């Protein structure tokens, strides 16, 4: 059973490595958006410290969104998606593999670069740690929920804009607790509660979202 998950992850990672430009451009998008905020708001450190969690998280949501339209579209266009749907395993497991691979190339790099960007906003060491942890814990849920939207909008005109319309409202809990964890740390309350809620959401999303996506993909393949 889990073999198929690993096969899909391995295949998608190999494909992503052959197309590194995509990963790099999403990462640069994240960096640029985050860096624009101090330029728009002004250099007062107190204000920046306060805004940092929200700014970083909103930018992370948008950067994750960038790669979502292609999550299934490439496989759909060249016929691979049909073959995946015909593999002798539940399609939900295949999608689980694709979601994990998506996180590895989109969410994980964001988490790794986030502390560096946090320094621009004068966050303390502890806050940087919590920020990294929150992005690590929260972005898998973004990939999972995003997969549902990507599957529902597969092959539609203007699918990219529609995808954001469907997915961004559903991202709100992740945004709230992700930014809240850092907020709570900055204000000295401790972000553990938020982090465990984020982890719960990620587990729920990874468990549930692939099956909803699989149902949506089957409709798209009819």
């Amino acid at each position, binding site marked *: 059973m889990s073999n198929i998950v690993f096969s899909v992850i391995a295949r998608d990672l190999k494909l992503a490595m052959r197309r590194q430009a995509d990963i790099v451009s999403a990462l640069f998008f994240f960096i640029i958006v985050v860096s624009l905020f101090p330029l728009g708001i002004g250099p007062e450190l107190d204000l920046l410290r306060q805004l940092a969690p929200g700014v970083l998280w909103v930018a992370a949501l948008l950067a994750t969104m960038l790669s979502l339209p292609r999550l299934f579209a490439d496989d759909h266009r060249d016929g691979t998606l049909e073959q995946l749907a015909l593999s002798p395993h539940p399609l939900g497991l295949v999608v689980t593999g694709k979601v994990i691979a998506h996180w590895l190339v989109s969410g994980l790099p964001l988490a790794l670069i986030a502390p560096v960007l946090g320094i621009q906003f004068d966050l303390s060491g502890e806050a940087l740690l919590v920020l990294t942890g929150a992005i690590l814990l929260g972005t898998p849920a973004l990939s999972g929920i995003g997969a549902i939207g990507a599957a529902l909008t597969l092959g539609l005109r203007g699918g990219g804009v529609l995808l954001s319309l*469907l997915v961004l409202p559903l991202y709100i809990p992740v945004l*709230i607790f992700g930014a809240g964890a850092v907020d709570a740390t900055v204000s000295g309350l401790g972000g553990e509660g938020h982090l465990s809620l984020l982890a719960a959401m990620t587990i729920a999303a990874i468990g549930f979202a692939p099956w909803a996506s699989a149902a949506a993909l089957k409709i798209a393949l009819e």
Partner: protein
Amino acid sequence: MNDRFNLYRFSSPATFYPLAGKMIPWFIAAGTLLGLVGLYIGMLVAPTDFQQGEGYRIIFIHVPTSWMSMFIYLVMAFWAAIGLAFNTRLSGMMAQALAPTGALMAFLSLWTGALWGKPMWGTWWVWDARLTSELILLFLYIGYMALVAAIDDARRADKAGGILLLVGVVNIPIIYFSVKWWNTLHQGSSVNLTKSSMAEIMLWGMLLMALAFWMYSIAVALARVRTIILERECHTDWVRAELTGGKS
């Protein structure tokens, strides 16, 4: 045995179409009547609220529209579940017919909420859990309508929309509680939406208005679903007969 309780008969568009046509005038009549009595009680009879003055009368619209916006979404999700489970044609059409009305209810709830909030709280908008969830509900309605409109094949649109509705129904409570928790963690909000001393007469007015909105929504949705049925079933003989028979 009993024909009246045969669900399959009523889930067939050919039977439902004339039935809906017959029911619409009744719902319009009931809605108008309830609305007039509700307005009479709410606007003319009900006393002034000692805390909020006359401004509280907005709740006679605000509360019913908020209820309806949530209730319609639940009904749509119910139809979606039925449609995905039993592959019935009518359920997807019902969900689609309800969506615009639900979105309008959500909009009215936000609009009246803002007009209530400005004199009461001194601000048009507060990032309170209920308001935020209502806003997201409006986004979900718009997302559903956009998705259904973007898919050309009607059956596929029904199914994809159904999945989105079910995902949304799981998410609404999560969104509500996350916003609520987020809000209480920020400095204590001075907003208190509980209306402690609502006089009985006010409650009656509100209930009547809620029923009136309910009737209105049903009537509009039924009228809309009749058009959708005609469009979807236009290749069947009974729709052809309906169209050529001159009855419209």
